[in-house]
């Protein structure tokens, strides 16, 4: 089972690498959104520091949203997903591998770029560290929640729009806690409670997500 899991992570990462412009698009979008705000708003350091965490987090969230529709749709289109449904390995294990590789390819780059973008908003080193950490802890749940929505809308027309509608309300808690963690650091408080909450949220989605995704895919094939 572990072997199949590893092979699927490797397969999806190979596929992502061979279609790297898609991923680059999403990363570039993140960079652009976050860089345009300081230009548009002006150089008031106090204001920038205030909106910085929020802007970077929203950028990361939307960038994640961009890559989600393809997570299962391409496998569904060429029917390789069907082979996964029929495989002896439980489907929930397979989808967890798919989500993991999505996170590694699409979200991990954001974690590393975010501190650089945060500098434009005059965030201190400590706040930048917390920003990266909050993204690292929060984005797994973004991937998993998005994957559930992606699986629910398999084979539907206009799935992208529907995914956005389904997913955004569920993203809100992650967004709020992520921003609060950074803001707490900026104002000299401990970010720990927010970071712990983010981690808890991610762990909860890791526990429930794969099962929900597998069920949703099962429904799509009936």
């Amino acid at each position, binding site marked *: 089972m572990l*072997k*199949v899991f590893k*092979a*699927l992570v490797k*397969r999806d990462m*190979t*596929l992502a690498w*061979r*279609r790297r412009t898609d991923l680059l698009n999403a990363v570039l979008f993140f960079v652009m959104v976050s860089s345009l705000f300081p230009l548009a708003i002006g150089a008031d350091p106090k204001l920038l520091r205030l909106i910085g965490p929020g802007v970077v987090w929203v950028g990361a969230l939307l960038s994640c949203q961009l890559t989600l529709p393809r997570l299962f749709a391409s496998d569904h289109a*060429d*029917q*390789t997903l*069907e*082979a*996964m*449904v*029929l*495989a*002896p*390995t439980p489907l929930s294990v397979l989808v967890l591998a798919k989500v993991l590789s999505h996170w590694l390819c699409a979200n991990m780059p954001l974690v590393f770029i975010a501190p650089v973008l945060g500098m434009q908003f005059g965030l201190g080193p400590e706040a930048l560290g917390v920003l990266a950490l909050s993204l690292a802890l929060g984005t797994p749940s973004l991937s998993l929640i998005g994957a559930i929505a992606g699986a629910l809308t398999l084979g539907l027309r206009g799935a992208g729009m529907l995914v956005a509608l389904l997913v955004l309300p569920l993203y809100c808690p992650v967004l709020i806690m992520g921003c609060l963690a950074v803001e707490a650091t900026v104002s000299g408080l401990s970010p720990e409670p927010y970071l712990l909450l983010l981690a808890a949220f991610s762990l909860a989605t890791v526990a429930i997500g794969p099962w929900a995704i597998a069920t949703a895919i099962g429904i799509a*094939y*009936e």
Partner: protein
Amino acid sequence: MLQVKQLTCVRADRPVFQGLSFDLKASRLMQVVGVNGSGKTSLLRILAGLLKPAEGSVSWRGMPIEQQTSDYSLARVYMGHANALKGDLSAMENLHWACLLAGRDPTQPVIAEALNHWGLNRRHHLPLRVLSQGQQRRAALARLSLLLDAKLWLLDEPFAALDTEAQEALEHLIARFLDEGGSVILTTHQAFGLSPRITDRVDLDRLRASC
């Protein structure tokens, strides 16, 4: 081995066929015939476990397939219309992944041999999308050469888009699989060389639901 009892299939609220029963034993070749829309693909998908029948049951070795653990998924191989291969991966990568997923782990030389057998020499490492349709189909069928240890093949239009050479290769492969104790259920409109070996035939037109 495979027992089907009083199977009824409903698609989009319309009954497709009803009251289908058969018992498929080892080393048997079953052909499913019927006009377009008579439910051939639906039948194979039900047998594979992808679709739930409206009524009736499918059992493998005496146990309904939805209660089976991994036994049935290791024993049956389903091949649909589509090749179920990734255009961005090479034939080698595609086959290795397909076999791993099916619970086998063939080595590279074994896969290479299967690909050569299907006339894909020197194309093992090219992205599949640069190959022709026919070659892609061959790569998909090469999967069967690696899954001879299965017990049941469900093949949906396996002869579509194949040239005579590939068709013969597939016929030989099916014959070998039958000799080794496997059973095959296939749908096709074409005449093919295995006709004398067909032991069972299901005509879905006669089971067409009256509505």
